[in-house]
C-alpha cells in the first residue's frame, strides 16, 4: 500500500457479547492498517460485524460487549487499554464518527449549534463565542445554506440531507485524523447521497483525514474507497485493493455479492442468488462460516476453518478453494448462457 506510516492498526480484533443464549462472537479476528488520507471500506450484510468493528474502535460497545483479544493501536497507543479519560480525549476529537440515522443520532432538544459547540469547547478549549463562529464556518463548509440561521435551529427543522451534513460538521469540528462513517448515506435519497459523498471526498482532500466507510452498498464502496474488507460472520473473508476486490474477487461470498446486485450499467438476464440467509450468530457452521451457503463447499469446508491466505501483495481471501473459484465461475457463467 502506501509508504506512509499507518495511523491506526487493528490486530486480530475480537469483540464478543454476553447474552442469555451464550457468547455471541460478533467480531472474530480482523486485521487492518489505516493510513492517513486513505479510505477503507468495510462491507457486509447485516450481522456481519461491520458496525461492531467501528464501535470497538470508538470504545462505544454496550455493557455486555467486551474485547477478549486483539489490539487497536492508534498513534502507538492501544485503545483497548486506555483509561476512560484517555479514550474520552480521543473519541470525538481525533476519531470522530458519523451515524446512519441522523434523526436519532442528533439530540432533538438542543440546537445544531449547541451540539457542534459542545465538542469544540470540550476538546479545543475555545470560549463559547469563538466556538459558535467555528460552528457557523463548519456548517458553511459542509454546504448548508444560511448557516447563521441554521446554527440556531433544532434537528427537526432540517431535512434528512441537511441533518447528515450537520452531523458531518459535528464530526469534523475538532479536525479528526480518522472519520468513521457508519452507513452515512443509507437513509438518504440518491441525489442527496451523491451530494454527501461528493462532500466527504472534498473534505478528505482538504483535511487529509483517513476514513473508515462502513456500508452494504457495493456501488458506494467502489466510488469512495481505496481498499476494502469484506466481512461475513464476524470475520474478514476477503481484503485488498478495491480494484482487485471488484475485478478479481477470490472469495465465493464476494463474488456472489458482486453478482447478486442489479446494475444500471450492465444488463443481466438473471441475478446470481446466494442461497439461504445469514445464520443467527450462534448458529454459524463449523469449519468455514460460509460453507452452508457456498457453491464451492466441499467436505473439508464443513469441518476445517480456513485461514486468511495471501493471494498476492495486499490481497487476502479466507477460502479453501481460492484457486478453484476462477474456473468454477467460468462454468457458472457458461451455464447461465
Amino acid at each position: 500500500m502506501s509508504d506512509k506510516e499507518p495511523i491506526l492498526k487493528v490486530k486480530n480484533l475480537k469483540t464478543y457479547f454476553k447474552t442469555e443464549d451464550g457468547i455471541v462472537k460478533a467480531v472474530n479476528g480482523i486485521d487492518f492498517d489505516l493510513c492517513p488520507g486513505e479510505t477503507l471500506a468495510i462491507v457486509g450484510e447485516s450481522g456481519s460485524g461491520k458496525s461492531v468493528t467501528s464501535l470497538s474502535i470508538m470504545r462505544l460497545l454496550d455493557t455486555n460487549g467486551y474485547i477478549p483479544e486483539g489490539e487497536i493501536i492508534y498513534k502507538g497507543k492501544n485503545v483497548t487499554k486506555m483509561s476512560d479519560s484517555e479514550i474520552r480525549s480521543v473519541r470525538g476529537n481525533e476519531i470522530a464518527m458519523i451515524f446512519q440515522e441522523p434523526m436519532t443520532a442528533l439530540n432533538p432538544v438542543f440546537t445544531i449549534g449547541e451540539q457542534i459547540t459542545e465538542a469544540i469547547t470540550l476538546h479545543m478549549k475555545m470560549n463559547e463565542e469563538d466556538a459558535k463562529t467555528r460552528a457557523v464556518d463548519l456548517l458553511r463548509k459542509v454546504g448548508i445554506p444560511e448557516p447563521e440561521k441554521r446554527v440556531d435551529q433544532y434537528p427537526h427543522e432540517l431535512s434528512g440531507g441537511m441533518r447528515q451534513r450537520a452531523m458531518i460538521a459535528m464530526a469534523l469540528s475538532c479536525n479528526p485524523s480518522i472519520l468513521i462513517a457508519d452507513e452515512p448515506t443509507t437513509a438518504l435519497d440518491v441525489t442527496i447521497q451523491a451530494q454527501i459523498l461528493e462532500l466527504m471526498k472534498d473534505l478528505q482532500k482538504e483535511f487529509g483525514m483517513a476514513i473508515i466507510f462502513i456500508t452494504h452498498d457495493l456501488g458506494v464502496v467502489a466510488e469512495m474507497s481505496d481498499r476494502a474488507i469484506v466481512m461475513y460472520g464476524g470475520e474478514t473473508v476477503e481484503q485488498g485493493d478495491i480494484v482487485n476486490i471488484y475485478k478479481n474477487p477470490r472469495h465465493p461470498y464476494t463474488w456472489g455479492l458482486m453478482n447478486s446486485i442489479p446494475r444500471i450499467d450492465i444488463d443481466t438476464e438473471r441475478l446470481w442468488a446466494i442461497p439461504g440467509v445469514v445464520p443467527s450468530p450462534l448458529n454459524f457452521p463449523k469449519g468455514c462460516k460460509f460453507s452452508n451457503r457456498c457453491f464451492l463447499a466441499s467436505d473439508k469446508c464443513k469441518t476445517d476453518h480456513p485461514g486468511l491466505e495471501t493471494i498476492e501483495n495486499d490481497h487476502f481471501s479466507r477460502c479453501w478453494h481460492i484457486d478453484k473459484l476462477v474456473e468454477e465461475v467460468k462454468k457458472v457463467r457458461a451455464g447461465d448462457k
Partner: protein
Amino acid sequence: MEDKKILLKVDNLKKYFPVRAGVFKKVVAHVKAVDDISFDVRQGETLGLVGESGCGKSTTGMSVLRLMDPTSGRIMLDGEDTTTWFMKGSQMKKYLNDTYLEKFEKARSDFKNQNEAIDFFQNEIDRKYAKVYFEEGIAGLKKLVDTGNNHKRKYFRRNAQIIFQDPYSSLNPRQRIKNIIAEGMLTHNLIKPSDVNNVVGDLLDKVGLQKDYMYRFPHQFSGGQRQRIGIARALALNPKLIVSDEAVSALDVSVQSQVINLMMDIQKEYKLTFIFIAHDLAVVKHISDRIAVMYLGKIAELTSKEKLFEKPMHPYTVSLMSAIPVPDPEVKKKRIILKGDVPSPLNPPKGCRFHPRCPIAKDICSKIEPPLKMIEEDHYVSCHFAGEFRS
C-alpha cells in the same frame, strides 16, 4: 412495442391530503401527493414506478388499489371503470357528471347521428356508457354503474393484490402462516376448507418455503422468508394485477436477489401484471419492462426501460442516473450533483416542479408547467426542453 392489451388504465389521478390547523381543524392547505398523472399498464408487463421519497409513488400504488380513495381520476381495470365501485350517492353523481355526461352531451351536439357520437369515443368504456346514456338516459347509466357494487368490489379485491414493503408489520403476528395465506381464498370461496392444507402447501412450495412452515407464526421467519410469505398471499387469489410497494428494499443484498428472482419467475409462470414501486433505479431497471420516473407528484418520464437508459430525456432522469454509484472502481463517472433538496409537496414550485434544481432551467420553466407529451413512439416526457440535457 407490440400491441398488448391494456389491463390497467389510470386517467388524471389526483390524491390530495388535507392539512388541518386551528381550533376548528379547518383545512388550510393540501399536500398534493399525486397531482394529475395518467398511465397504462399492459397485460403481463411490469411497470416500474421510481422516484425519491415524497414523489408520490406509493400513494399512486395505494390509490390504484383503492387502499386510499383518490381525490379524483379514473381507474380502469380490464375494460371496466372501477372508480364508481367504491362510491356512493352524491359522490358518484358528481363523478359521472364530470367524467362522462359533459363529454357525452358535447358529442351529442357535435354529431347529428347517435352512432357517430358513440364512435367518436376511442375508449371502450366511454362507448359502452355513451350507448347506455343515449338510449336510456341518466337513469339508465346510473342503474348500470350502481348495481351490484358489493359484488364488483369483491371482484376488484380479488384481482388487485399488494405486496408490502415491511415484511414485519404486514403479517398478523397472531395468525399462523396457513391462515394468513388461506384467508383470502376462503373469503372469496375459491377453495373448500378441506383443501386449505394442500393449496397452501403448494403455494409455499412455489415461493421456495417448506410446506410444513404453514403451521408456524410470522415471528419464526427472517425478513426474506416473510417477504416470500407476502408473495404467496398475493398469489393465492390468482390476481390480475399485483402492486409491489418497495417489496425488496428492506432486504439484505443476497436475500434481495433471491426475492427478485422469485418475483420474476412467478410473473412468467402466472403471466402476472406488476406495478413495481421502488426507489432503487437499478432494481427497477432489472425487473421492469417500462418505467415511469416520478418527481413531486408528477410523472417526469415514462418509457420502455431500454429507451430510458439509452436515451433519457428529462433532466431529472439524467441526473438521477448519474447520481447512482456504479459498483466498478474503474468507472469514474462525471457526476451531476443536483442542488438542494426535493421541495415540499405542500408548496410545490410553480411551473415545472423540477425547475429550482434543474441544470438547464430557463424562464419558461418557472412559469408554465410542461405536460407529459409523447416525444417519440412510446416515450413520454414532461419537459419543455426534452432531450437537451445529457450527462
